[in-house]
């Protein structure tokens, strides 16, 4: 394979592949910063993908589709919030339940929406906006500066999230809740409220990541469209070390390996391609082995918070 000819396309696939993971991972950063590990991202993304697709098609306005998808993501994530924050249920288990329930709801909705009316099966796509000048930079121009608006927004979100956690009072409060909720409480921070807020942001961003799949990537919804991206996003948060910039790097790296996988598939056509398909997952494990463990993340992550606990 001529790597240099394949590279621009790999880079394009990288940015495209990174966006949904980035969005979900940014959502998860909020969640984990507030001490909630949400393994149900996969399910929330499925909901986002379907609702974005269906509402975008129904209203003919993709942005309305995106907005409603985010609302739906918040709604389904409220189920998670209620179970884990209010009822103090186990976070992993609740996430697993969401992963089973949410795609089923999405599929059911799809059945109702498309039914036997196959005219509804294909939706619309957001158009790419090439930034004049920048988009013609060799290699990276098309990858980075010829994107859909949603993708640009996702990348713009990174410095914003970073700014939020660094410079906003609320950002500091978020972090304190994930680190030591009891200390936060003594300083007058409403821990339960922060956790619910985190779930709202997480649900909205994750669903936006899902919606990206149907609104910007391909104009159709299929059961299983998320393909483990939710789980990858979880891993991304760990080796992006719970920071927006880290998550950006990690998801781009993941996108790169996914793009590489496809490039290898495209060029080594007779090879057993399943080994190429393993690359992103193996890469995730290897990356975790090297970067995953030292910094263990928010200290109270994953633990239920009882206010009256001694």
């Amino acid at each position, binding site marked *: *394979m*001529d790597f240099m*000819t*394949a590279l*621009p*396309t*790999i880079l*394009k*696939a990288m940015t*495209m*592949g990174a966006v949904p993971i980035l969005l979900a991972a940014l959502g998860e950063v909020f969640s984990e910063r507030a001490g909630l590990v949400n393994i149900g991202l996969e399910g929330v993304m499925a909901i986002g993908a379907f609702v974005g697709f269906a509402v975008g098609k129904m209203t003919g306005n993709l942005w309305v589709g995106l907005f409603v998808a985010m609302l739906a993501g918040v709604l389904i994530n409220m189920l998670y919030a209620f179970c884990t924050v209010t009822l103090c249920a186990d976070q992993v288990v609740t996430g697993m339940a969401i992963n089973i329930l949410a795609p089923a709801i999405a*599929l059911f909705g*799809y*059945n109702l929406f*498309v*039914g*036997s*009316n*196959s005219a*509804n*099966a*294909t939706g619309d*796509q957001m158009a*790419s906006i090439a930034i004049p000048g920048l988009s013609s930079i060799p290699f990276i121009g098309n990858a980075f500066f010829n994107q859909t608006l949603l993708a640009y927004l996702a990348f713009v979100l990174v410095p914003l999230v970073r700014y939020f956690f660094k410079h906003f009072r609320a950002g500091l409060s978020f972090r304190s809740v994930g680190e030591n909720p009891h200390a936060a409480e003594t300083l007058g921070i409403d821990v339960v409220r922060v956790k619910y807020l985190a779930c709202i942001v997480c649900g909205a961003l994750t669903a936006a990541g899902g919606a990206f*799949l149907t609104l910007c*990537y*391909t*104009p*159709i919804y*299929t*059961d*299983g*469209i998320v*393909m483990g991206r939710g789980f990858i996003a979880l891993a991304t948060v760990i080796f992006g070390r719970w920071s927006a910039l880290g998550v950006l790097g990690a998801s781009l790296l993941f996108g790169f390996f*996914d*793009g590489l996988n*496809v*490039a290898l*598939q*495209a*060029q080594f*056509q*007779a090879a057993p*391609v*399943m080994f190429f398909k393993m690359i992103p997952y193996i890469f995730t494990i290897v990356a975790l082995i090297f970067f995953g463990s030292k910094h263990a993340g928010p200290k109270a992550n994953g633990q239920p918070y009882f206010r009256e606990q001694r």
Partner: protein
Amino acid sequence: GGSGSSSSSSDSSASGSDSEQSSYKVAMIMSGIITDGGWDQGHYESLKRALESHPKWTMLEPKENTADADAATAAQTYVDQDVDLIIGNGNQFASDWAEVVADAADSHPKVHFLITNTDPTAEMTDYETLDPVETVLPDFKQTGALAGVVAGLMTQTKSIGFIGGMKLPSTITKYSAYLAAAQKIDPSIQGQYNFEAGFTDASLGTNLTQQWIASNNVDVMWGDASAVDNGARQALEAAGADTHFDIAQPIDIVGADQPTVVTSTVTDWMIGQAMDEIESGSFGGGKAITGNMDNGGITLGKFSDKVSQDVQDKIKEYSEQIKAGTFVTDDEVSAIQNTL
């Protein structure tokens, strides 16, 4: 829903009066959904066409998203309801159903099975009895050759691509005939292929096609991978719908909302023929129904306005040769097949 009838009532009805039976039921089992824009939708549309010409038949709600582990159970539930014809969309059902078929042959003689895309000699070795089964096997060489002709005439860059969901013998045959026919038109044409794309990951279709466009100048794609084809069309459209074309399969989807699709190779799964055989009592024995250009099993769909009249005429001319078996020879096809 009144479509379900209890099995006790049909037990009492005499099974000897098949030919005078006034109503028949047909059910379809698939691993995807009826709106997948590809494989299962093609089957579903074939079934609907067959129903139009067979008024005695009624259809039960199709069983979608049937996991491998549930395939046998799904068939069994229809056996229990004495459904006259149970259709399995694809050869993956062949091995799953062996037991159900054997049981049904004894206990429910009125139930028949039709498994599509299956070669009974190679894929039904598990079967104790083939009495109530038939398969449908379209002439994939014709399908491939039709697509190849279109691709050969449409490509400017002399580079064409193909994405298959799964590495099946049928997929390989299709691609081989596709490339052979295209090379017949212009021997310098190069082919790119992927047979392992699955049927759901549309983004893979996009990325693969982008790679080929960038690295190999591919400008015509033919797809056999349902949702993945959508992704491929996405990439073609992004590269310019005026110069990049897609040939759809297996349903006719040419239209305004598909700017890249120039035509479709349409497969009909010959369900009507199976129904006729059941009505006349001649169904079964593990026969394979062939679908080809003669019996309407394989057709070329509508053309978009990107295909000039001149090209359309040529396609028509070559189609006749394909139908007659004179366009590409078996040797030419297997020569390519051997390189894969």
